[in-house]
């Protein structure tokens, strides 16, 4: 049994910083099973209690966090994640810490997504493997909030890498990046994306738990900045059907003692045996974890809406249509060898999605899966029969099919724990049901006057 040591030193640091900078409120952040950020504000006077005993919350009000009869939960902040919120001002401002959710007797709550990821990472770490991720997050900026009946209006009309003269987009990214860096979140790269008003910001690679914390923070920062500029940011997977969706391509790598275990000089594409088994795991279980990497009804409209979306379960070397891509790398740079997973969308719960990807990859390593042949061609240009001949299966075409594969998956139940597994099944079936309980414009248009 592993546990965290009382980190008194960190606690003191936090308390001192709060004092020095005259922080007035500390927000305790955690997330629900969907991945929505939840926040509880405490005053500096409550900090010590928060560290030693935790802050009690009523978990029953939060999606998937508790069973109705066991609603008392504790938040225990992780002092290593303390940051002041830059948009709240440096002095007399507000700070935040990410929290673990615990049961009243101090055990990690089975339903805390952060716990799910930690457990899977612990299992890998017991085998000497550390898990790093590097996400490229896409999102849209619109001129105003969506309202029923109104078309969505992106803030510009530019395309990939375009230099936008309309200064808004650039200013926007500059502010976001400076805020992120003020919060110690390193940005690797940022640019305008393909769609109008669409942007991409890549976060620097870090261990998967930190990355997941960062993604949650990132979404909040983006929304705050957008609002401050009179715009609205959306991470919805496919807000406009004829425009590119919001993907979150993520580079995955495993390290052992500071060495990238995916890298093997001289091997094909520099891929070690471990990397090949890991990719094989990602592919074999792709349908099972789709509910986690692509959690909304809308997610499947991105996956099946062309525009370079990875709709088929295959891998390729630098193949932009493959679900898993092995990018070019500089032969001398062993540490950069990694695997790009292209299926994720920006609306995923990063804790659960990263946990599922690691779990699937580890399964491949443990059971020494054979990696199928890589796909050279652009997969969506092949015919169905060609794909079948090549043994390339499609990802689930909608949330319902994804749920069917998920429900059959022992691996997912094991990764998530039975309670989160069950909750997702219920919650997502409800979502599917709501989606089906509507009559769409398309139906009216094609059927109303037809017969």
């Amino acid at each position, binding site marked *: 049994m592993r546990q965290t040591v009382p980190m008194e030193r960190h606690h003191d640091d936090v308390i001192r910083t709060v004092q020095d900078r005259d922080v007035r409120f500390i927000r305790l952040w955690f997330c629900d099973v969907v991945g929505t950020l939840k926040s509880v504000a405490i005053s500096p006077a409550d900090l010590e209690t928060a560290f030693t005993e935790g802050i009690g919350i009523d978990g029953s009000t939060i999606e998937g966090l508790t069973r109705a009869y066991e609603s008392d939960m504790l938040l225990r902040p992780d002092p290593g994640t303390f940051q002041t919120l830059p948009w709240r001002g440096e002095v007399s401002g507000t700070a935040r810490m990410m929290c673990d959710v615990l049961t*009243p007797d101090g055990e990690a709550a089975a339903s805390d997504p952060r716990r799910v990821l930690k457990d899977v990472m612990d299992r890998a770490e017991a085998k000497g493997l550390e898990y790093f991720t590097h996400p490229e997050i896409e999102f849209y900026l619109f001129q105003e909030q969506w309202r029923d009946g109104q078309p969505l209006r992106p803030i510009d009309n530019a395309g990939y890498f375009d230099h936008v003269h309309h200064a808004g987009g650039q200013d926007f990214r500059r502010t976001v990046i400076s805020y992120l860096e003020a919060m110690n979140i390193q940005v690797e790269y940022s640019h305008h994306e393909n769609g109008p008003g669409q942007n991409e910001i890549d976060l620097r690679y870090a261990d998967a738990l930190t990355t997941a914390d960062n993604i949650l923070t990132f979404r909040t920062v983006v929304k705050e900045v957008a609002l401050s500029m009179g715009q609205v940011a959306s991470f919805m997977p496919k807000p406009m059907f004829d425009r590119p969706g919001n993907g979150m391509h993520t580079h995955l790598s495993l390290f052992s003692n500071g060495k990238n275990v995916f890298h093997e000089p001289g091997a094909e594409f520099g891929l070690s045996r471990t990397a090949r088994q890991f990719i094989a795991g990602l592919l074999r279980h792709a349908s099972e974890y789709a509910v986690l990497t692509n959690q909304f009804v809308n997610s499947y409209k991105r996956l099946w809406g062309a525009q370079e979306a990875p709709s088929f379960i295959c891998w390729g070397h630098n193949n932009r249509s493959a679900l898993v891509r092995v990018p070019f790398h500089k032969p001398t740079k062993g540490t950069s060898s990694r695997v790009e997973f292209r299926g994720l969308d920006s609306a995923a719960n990063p804790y659960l999605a990263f946990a599922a990807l690691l779990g699937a990859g580890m399964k491949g390593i443990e059971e020494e899966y054979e990696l199928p042949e890589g796909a050279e061609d652009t997969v969506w240009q092949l015919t169905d029969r060609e794909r079948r001949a090549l043994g390339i299966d499609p990802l689930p075409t909608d949330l319902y099919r994804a749920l069917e594969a998920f429900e059959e998956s022992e691996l997912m139940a094991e990764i998530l724990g039975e309670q989160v597994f069950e909750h997702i099944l219920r919650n997502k079936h409800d979502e599917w049901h709501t989606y089906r309980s509507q009559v769409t414009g398309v139906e009216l248009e094609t059927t109303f006057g037809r017969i």
Partner: protein
Amino acid sequence: MPVPSRAELVRLGFARADRAERFLADPLLSPMSRELIEAIAASADPDEATIGLLRLMESMDRAGLREQGRAILAGESGRDLVRVLGASVALGDHLTRHPETLSALLGGQDEPLASAEAYRTRILEAVGADPGSAIPVASGTGDELRIAYFTSLAGIALADLTAADPVALQVRVSQALADLAAAALEGALALARALTEDHEQVLLSILAMGKTGARELNYISDVDVLYVVAPAGGAEVSGETLTAVGGALARHVARVCSERTAEGSLWQVDANLRPEGKDGELVRTIDSYRRYYERWADSWEFQALLKARPVAGDPGLGAAFVDLVQPMVWQASTREGFVDDTRAMRRRVVDLIPHAETERNVKLGPGGLRDVEFTVQLLQMVHGRGDETLRTRGTLEALSLLRDGGYVSRAQADEMDEAYRFLRVVEHRIQLHRLRRSQVIPDAPADLRRLARTVGLGTEDFARRIGSVRRRGRPLHEEIFYRPLLQTAAGLSDGEVRLTPASAQARLAAIGYRDPVRATRHIAALTGGVSRSAAIQRQLLPALLEWFADGIDPDMGLLAFRRLSEEAGSTHWFLGMLRDSGVAAKRLTRVLSSSRYVGDQLVAMPYATRWLSRDEELRPLRAAELGEELTASMRRASSVADAVTVVRDVRRREITRIALSRLSERIGPIEVGGALSDLADAELAAALDLAMTEENARGIRMAVIALGSFGAREMGYASDADVQFVVEDAGAGEDAVSQGIRVATAVQKILNAPSAGMDMKVSADLRPEGRAGALARSADSWEGYYRRHAEHWELQALLRARVCAGDADLAARLEESLDALRYPAEGLTPARERDLSRMKARIESERLPRGVTPERHLKLGRGAMTDVEWVVQKLQLAHAGADPSLRIVGTLPALDALAAAGILPADEAEELAEAWLLAWRLRRALFLWKGRETDALPADRTDRRALALLVEGSDASARSLEEHYLRVTRRARAIAEREIFGEVMHRLPGETHP
């Protein structure tokens, strides 16, 4: 001098006097003095000493050291030498190989028990390294290291074996051994540097752990180490270089120390206490250790770090490591998991002994060396957090500090100290003989005699002494740890132990009492006063407190024990039994700390406690035995009311017996169901007998059919009994049925009379036509109903039916009809199959109580007992008509039969059985734990943890149990859905998962 005669040699103690006579006559030994022969005779093994001496002289002769040899034989130093030769064949061999080392050894040039610094200088010079250099690099070889090591070891053995009081010298000997081992590591490191490229870029420090770290080493044992690395002199060194160079150095060190050549081998270097154990990185930086210890380490790892001490390599780096870990060590007792780890460790210390060696192993087992070390260390961890004076590495040093601090009484500390030193001396002597790593006292008479003589005792005295030290060891632990708690609780003090209430409570908390304040109050109540029973309690409680602490809920156990003692403490047998029967006392502590139900029952009927000392009383009574007792005593009863009391008392008594039997692990989980059903059978038989008499029912025969869990013999402690009454005319004519109804009514009245206890409720609601139907039916009418009118589900219910009481002929007839009715020859028709599935679906939506989520209901929930039972029933209906091997009442045996017949795949049958059995066991365990029937997996985690320990054993946790239960039932549900409802069910809009 002339060689003594054979007879004299025999008298002197030579075992093979003929051979000794020949050897002693060798011209090489002729300068030998009479005193030397007597010294040989006084050595541990005179025969071996003689051979050793002769071989040594031959070797000196060959080496041209004849004159020195003669001087040794003639002088006093020879007498010391033969002590070593008689006790250690291995050191004799070493000296024979290197006679040139002898003069330094005997001539007093080398201090035999030298300082750490002196050993370091000796070893480094031997391998051609400069002891004055900060980073010594060797020019010599591993063999030079080994020769120097064994020469110094021989010096230590010499001082040890010639000591007037080896027990008194033991601490100093162990320190010298540890210092010599440290010097050897330094020498090995110097050799490793010579073999490692770029070694100058990396600073390495070797930390010794375990006995080497605590400077309490024995002659030969693995040396536990950790390695710390840092860049040398502020150089820019990459992480990879650090790891590579540091790792190479560490591997060379380990190889030099363990390699075996003609010069022997030192010992194994064991680095498995490092972070992540065998899989972890061999060398780490201080930062890397910090990250690990702050984030990952288990509490036992900090207990191991208590002993960490820099012994070789860069001293500054070693000191930095100690500075890093020491504060963590002393906070360890407040960490989550400390109590659990401590319990687990105590189990390892006390339980896991290879049985054949228990008595002969000085290290393992109760009262062995490790037991003492564990006791001292636990006290150190508990009290050392607040009291810095206790922070030391060595066991005996810690013990004396605990004594001085008033945590342990002087007499007990001295006794433990003496016992520990004695066992260590024995261990040393065992190892010296051939320098083998052993802690087992030999059993061959010659070996045993030699060993006894090395500690200056005769064989028999030796065995007695060992036995008494061992027997005293375990109680001494309890005395030292728990006795002061009694004194503090009672406000007494013997003047030596001054444990504050807070310290006493810390001790209780460290071993698992959640409410030490209240526990202290119970202890005070039990032991206070001058009564005889208080005196016995004072004697018993130290051991009992420990056993309660091993149980699921120590606080509940102690409270129940207090209540029980208040009820039964004054009886002549209660405390006596606990004092005389360790088994009974141990069982009682387990029972009271795991079952609220049994605790309450024992307080109400203390006499049942006696069964714990007799295995035959813990056997559930058979149905026939019970039947006889019940029938006889109910007939004796003066009224029906009296008879009701009799049944109730017997029932209560027997349920308690079954529970005690289960908790003492005299019977398995499934036998509980059988025993409880036997009990119900006997009650019904006796009640029927009484009712027939009371109602004067002479003209009828009657039988009772058991259904449901009663029929399937799967009853729980508080299950109801579902029955049907069938009557047959035996002269009553038309009156038969109405007589039968009167009897059936009387039976229910007897068994269902209201009372405060938990009675079995006898229910006939499942009879033909339900509650509207007649309470008893004639056999013809009963058969007719099932043939012509019964609905499908009623026939299905007969699959779990059997005749449990009544007239034998009628019973036989009914059993025959049952088989004909429930195993249809035509199997399951499509209409009936459809009916069955629909009925199951309806039950699922209607039966589940409000407020319980389906996953957590142990009976009706998703994949729980009902689901599994329906699969079995459906398959029996379909196939048992054709296949008689399937005609079985009882879920688990029926599943086996279905798998054997190839109707259910074996893995599916197994998964269904696992889910069913787990749910069944949880329901039974819940009853024992809470004292009442509950059907939902508890929401409360304390309850779940208790269940986990009761059902899944000592490694389980609340979360692991929940996860396990949800998993097996989810899988069982998937199988059940397929079997009952056909192919995969598609979810339809709005449908929730059952």
